[in-house]
């Protein structure tokens, strides 16, 4: 480095993205406190500039001193040096004077150059905002909102309402604004967008808040948040005192949460007239909102849209009633592609967006187009659906090379959620798929429907965003005229369980709630009775203790019940995983999974079913993560989506936090490493501010779809780094070896949560091939296992003892696509589980014929009286534990955890009881008079003896004394049914007491063993004999343990 010329001849290499090459080290002005730091993201940009600047500089003569000045005091000879209004300082000076000067000169000009560039961007931004259609309405909007509690702003795509309206109020000095969005991703992107548009100080004024992620500061004035999240906030702040202005965006989309917010805010405004509410909507279906809010003024803003030419190309085929499993015919799509190729010059840019109904349709069309492209060579095929990862979705935004058009084949995700610029042609199949809920069968049905007029217009509009376009509709104008006007709002087609719970927790009555559109009475009644049956509601609008907790959990009732029960029974950690796993999209990668991956993955499968498999996968993954292994590769080799696993880890944390907040449970409070939190926050900010790099699409014809190459990996790494950081911040070490009773309890808890989603094997399964197995649920017969279910391959596990009637299956959803499928299945021992979870358990006189929920009928050779009585005991203990947890009566967490572990052992051995029986479904012809309670002996509110009328003698059975010998104590004599019950209960109590003593002894042994082991393992801390004067016992204690022991006595006086 002696020769300063060297730098000039060999300018620093700029290909290193982090700028960590040798040249940089030669400049000591780049240090941790200078303008350019070694970590600065603009460092490579600077080196780039440096290289060019030096070349230019060589052409310019240096400033000559002394500088001659004219009468204005300005240098007479022009030099760029004089045009820079600042100096750049650095705390360290380079020894080499010349190089130091050179560097500072470059830096000054670099900063000058950047300043001009940024200024241009700023003025362009300001101009752009003024040109938006909504800008003309700015003053009108502000004054209307000032004068009215609720205002409706209607405007179509391109008018700028989502980005501008919140800013207008921020500018007007509103201190706390909430703007809701139906989608998480929109919250993040709008916050970024608006904070850039308002040039606010590094995002402090504007933030966002979505599930698992937020960017808020104490002085944040405007936050974008999801509709669901604002609803959650309403549970604690029913009048929304936290805000002075609420903006509900995209209300026309009519999501369940949006509808709910509308109704709630209507009430809030009445009670708190100084709050301001703005509803923003597209111009569709305005009449509905007008009549819902007759007093609210309406401001209509025109959209900005280029003309779109309309062509109807009916396929005729669509009119025919084809079976839903049949593949669609891609021919009509190809004809239109040919037409585009023929009519429009390849030089004219413009991409094609095809709206297909679902995944299978997308794949069929993609295949056909890829084949067509083999001849043409000017198309690049890009499927787009919600199961793609974010970086895969990002590809549709990349540029095609000149002369090539993108052919994006999408579900209705591209209708509103994703906006792609540069689309000129649309092919609209006119179809979409939607989940429809059948409340009587408790069945989710994925069905294909015709779209509404509003959706068809929205699809068409996607071609007119950046220029004039063409829309081809694969249906006739008559078809279009027959379409429904608007899509069916969510409130009319989804289960209402969670909605009712949330309303009840805010003290609102669903029967009198001011819905925009009333949900169907059948759905409502079904949900209300379901919630009462599940013990979540005391009456129609009064929550039970369990219901209070369920209303706080952002999951379905079944999962809430699962989590709550798991917390009570001491298996929360693994249950968090199960609940999280049931709350995400599939872990399995559909499109990239061959035999090899399946085989490796099968090692993680559990014979217990899909839930235990989920648990295995997650635990194994976290184990690998904590070992520092390359989990990304690990996941890929097993056909798993790692993003979903990260999602699970976030869900687990959220669930744990909510349960901890609402139940009086033990466990350390989570403390986060604040430095790491800051680091993650900064990493996220950087990522957000960096404009997503749009890349040129690589075209290798015929192979476009199969690009799972290394490119994706790179683009994903940053996201993964952040996910990983977050993961390590909050996740405890995995626990792989759960004991048998913990696993049994977990399995039981899962099944209890899912109940009444229980299925039974068809009695003829024994004679069938595994692929033909059918099952029956209480409300729907002949259902099959979902293709993802592990029992498809592990059918032997389903019937381990070859007794094909023994097991029951619990499932999470009954999903109908082309067949009714059971999803996320777990097997359980039928009889013992039914005794514990069914609402109505009835037996005949001698406990050999047992009917559960008027649906399952167990027939035994030997009396099950001892099991039935034990079941009563277990139910008692269990509800006592639930009650104690809910009422916060747990003073000693250690004592309670002992109680939990004892319960687990009892439960496990009960579930594993050796009992032989046959199981079948009660036939509808048998039903009448099968269960009668006149002569029944009630053991508890669920279990009754002598209520099944199987023989003529049972009427007398209640009074008859029969000879009976107690198996436990050997007492023999004449007993009536109730006497027998009493005796059994006593005997079991005694037996249990003895068991308990044994267990206690075992526990003590275990404890001392553990203590000894840890003492000897961790550090050789010397122990000594210690006689405690208070309890009179002798211990082998370390000094610390002695102190701890004394403290224990102190904290609970005798």
């Amino acid at each position, binding site marked *: 480095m002696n020769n300063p010329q060297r730098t000039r001849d060999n300018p620093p290499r700029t290909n290193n993205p982090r700028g960590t090459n040798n040249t940089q080290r030669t400049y000591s002005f780049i240090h941790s406190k*200078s*303008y350019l730091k070694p970590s*600065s*993201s*603009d460092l490579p940009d600077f080196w780039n500039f440096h290289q060019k600047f030096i070349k230019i500089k060589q052409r310019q003569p240096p400033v000559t001193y002394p500088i001659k000045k*004219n*009468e*204005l*005091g*300005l*240098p*007479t*000879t*022009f030099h760029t040096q*004089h*045009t*820079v*209004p*600042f*100096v*750049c*300082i*650095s705390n360290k000076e380079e020894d080499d004077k010349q190089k130091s000067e050179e560097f500072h000169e470059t830096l000054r000009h670099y*900063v000058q150059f*950047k*300043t*001009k560039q*940024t*200024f241009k*961007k*700023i*003025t362009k931004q*300001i101009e752009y905002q003024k040109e938006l259609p909504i800008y003309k309405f700015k003053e009108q909007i*502000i*004054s209307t909102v*000032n004068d009215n509690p609720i205002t409706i702003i209607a405007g179509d795509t391109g008018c700028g309402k989502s980005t501008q309206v919140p800013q207008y109020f921020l*500018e*007007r*000095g*509103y*201190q706390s604004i909430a703007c809701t969005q139906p989608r998480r991703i929109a919250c993040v992107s709008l916050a970024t967008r608006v*904070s*850039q548009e*308002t*040039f*606010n*100080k*590094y995002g402090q004024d504007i933030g966002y808040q979505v599930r698992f992620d937020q960017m808020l500061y104490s002085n944040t004035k405007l936050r974008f948040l999801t509709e669901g999240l604002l609803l959650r906030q309403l549970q604690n702040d029913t009048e929304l005192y936290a805000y*002075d*202005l609420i903006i509900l965006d995209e209300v026309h989309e009519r999501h369940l949460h949006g509808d709910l917010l509308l109704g709630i805010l209507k009430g809030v405004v009445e009670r708190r007239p*100084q709050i*301001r509410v703005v509803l923003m909507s597209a111009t569709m279906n305005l009449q509905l909102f007008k009549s819902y809010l007759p007093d609210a003024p309406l401001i209509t803003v025109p959209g900005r849209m280029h003309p779109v030419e309309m062509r109807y190309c009916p396929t005729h085929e669509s009119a025919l009633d084809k079976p839903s499993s049949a593949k669609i015919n891609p021919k009509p799509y190809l004809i239109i592609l040919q037409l585009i190729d023929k009519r429009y010059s390849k030089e004219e840019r413009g991409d094609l967006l095809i709206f297909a109904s679902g995944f299978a349709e997308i794949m069929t069309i993609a295949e056909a187009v890829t084949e067509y492209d083999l001849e043409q060579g000017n198309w690049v095929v890009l499927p787009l659906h919600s199961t793609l990862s974010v970086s895969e979705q990002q590809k549709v935004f990349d540029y095609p090379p000149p002369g090539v058009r993108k052919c994006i084949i999408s579900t209705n995700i591209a209708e509103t959620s994703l906006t792609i610029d540069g689309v000129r042609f649309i092919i609209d199949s006119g179809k979409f798929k939607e989940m429809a809920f059948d409340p009587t069968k408790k069945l989710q049905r994925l069905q294909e429907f015709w779209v509404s007029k509003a959706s068809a217009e929205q699809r068409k509009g996607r071609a007119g965003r950046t220029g004039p376009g063409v829309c081809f509709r694969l249906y006739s104008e008559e078809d279009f005229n027959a379409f429904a006007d608007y899509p069916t709002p969510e409130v009319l087609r989804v289960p209402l369980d969670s909605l009712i719970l949330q309303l009840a927790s805010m003290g609102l009555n669903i029967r009198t709630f001011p819905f925009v559109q009333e949900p169907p009475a059948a759905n409502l009644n079904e949900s209300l009775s379901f919630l009462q049956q599940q013990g979540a509601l005391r009456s129609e609008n009064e929550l039970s203790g369990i219901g209070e907790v369920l209303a706080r959990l952002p999951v379905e009732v079944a999962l809430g019940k699962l989590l709550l029960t798991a917390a009570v029974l001491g298996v929360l950690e693994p249950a968090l995983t199960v609940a999280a796993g049931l709350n995400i999209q599939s872990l399995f990668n559909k499109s990239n999974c061959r035999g090899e991956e399946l085989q490796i993955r099968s090692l993680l499968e559990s014979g217990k079913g899909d839930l235990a498999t989920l648990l295995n996968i997650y635990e194994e993954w976290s184990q690998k993560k904590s070992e520092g292994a390359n989990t990304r590769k690990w996941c890929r080799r097993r056909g798993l989506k790692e993003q979903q696993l990260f999602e699970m880890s976030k869900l687990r944390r959220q669930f744990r936090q909510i349960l901890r907040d609402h139940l009086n449970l033990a466990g350390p409070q989570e403390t986060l490493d604040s430095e790491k939190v800051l680091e993650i926050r900064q990493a996220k*900010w*950087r990522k957000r*501010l*960096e404009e997503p790099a749009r890349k040129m699409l690589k075209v290798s014809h015929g192979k476009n779809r199969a690009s799972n190459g290394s490119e994706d990996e790179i683009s994903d790494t940053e996201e993964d780094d952040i996910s990983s950081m977050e993961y390590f911040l909050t996740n405890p070490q995995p626990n792989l070896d759960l004991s048998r009773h913990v696993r049994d309890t977990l399995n039981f808890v899962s099944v209890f949560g899912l109940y009444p989603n229980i299925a039974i094997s068809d009695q003829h399964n024994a004679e069938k091939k595994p692929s033909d197995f059918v099952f029956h649920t209480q409300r729907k017969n002949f259902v099959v296992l979902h293709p993802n279910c592990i029992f498809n391959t592990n059918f032997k596990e389903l019937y381990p003892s070859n007794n094909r009637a023994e097991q029951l299956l619990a499932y999470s959803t009954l999903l109908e696509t082309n067949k009714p499928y059971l999803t996320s299945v777990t097997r359980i021992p039928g009889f013992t589980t039914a005794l514990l979870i069914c609402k109505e358990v009835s037996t005949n006189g001698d406990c050999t014929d047992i009917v559960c929920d008027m649906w399952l009928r167990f027939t035994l050779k030997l009396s099950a009286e001892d099991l039935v009585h034990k079941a009563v005991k277990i139910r008692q203990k269990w509800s006592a534990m639930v009650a104690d947890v809910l009422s916060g009566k747990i003073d000693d967490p250690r004592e309670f955890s002992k109680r939990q572990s004892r319960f687990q052992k009892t439960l496990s051995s009960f579930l594993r009881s050796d009992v032989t029986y046959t199981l079948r479904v009660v036939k509808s012809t048998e039903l009448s008079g099968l269960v009668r309670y006149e002569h029944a002996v009630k053991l508890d509110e669920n279990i009754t003896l002598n209520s099944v009328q199987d023989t003529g003698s049972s009427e007398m059975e209640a009074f008859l004394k029969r000879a009976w010998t107690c198996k436990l104590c050997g007492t023999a004599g004449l007993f009536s049914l109730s006497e027998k019950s009493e005796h059994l209960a006593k005997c079991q109590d005694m037996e249990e007491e003895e068991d308990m003593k044994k267990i206690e002894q075992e526990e003590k042994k275990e404890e001392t063993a553990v203590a000894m082991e840890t003492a000897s393992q961790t550090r050789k801390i010397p122990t000594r004999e210690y006689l405690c004067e208070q309890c009179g016992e002798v211990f082998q204690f370390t000094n610390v343990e002695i102190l701890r022991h004394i403290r224990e006595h102190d904290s609970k006086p005798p």
Partner: protein
Amino acid sequence: MNDGGQEVRRDLVVCQICQINLPYDFYGKKAPYCPGVIYFDDTYLLRDPYSPEPRVVAVAGPCDLCSSIACLDCSVFYTKRFCGKCILENSDGFPSQIVVGIKDKLQQVMRHQAET
């Protein structure tokens, strides 16, 4: 809340030539978040909204001759900041490169103002 309807301005500076409203967060020679850059004269400064790093940009400053405030587009820095109008009035005192550049810009502004 803001009931009276009175406008609470965030920090905005108006260019007295083209009338553009520009945001700024500091008026002075340097901004605390970016101490490495020191301006010679008092200037309206803004944190670069497009950079993840704490970078500062100037948006406007007072003219050395007439003290009216001009944005970066309507003024030129040549050892001091001068607004476009003063440069044109004193065009003999400035190098031709500077006069030509600002003349085009000012004509644009005048045309735009005449239109609206």
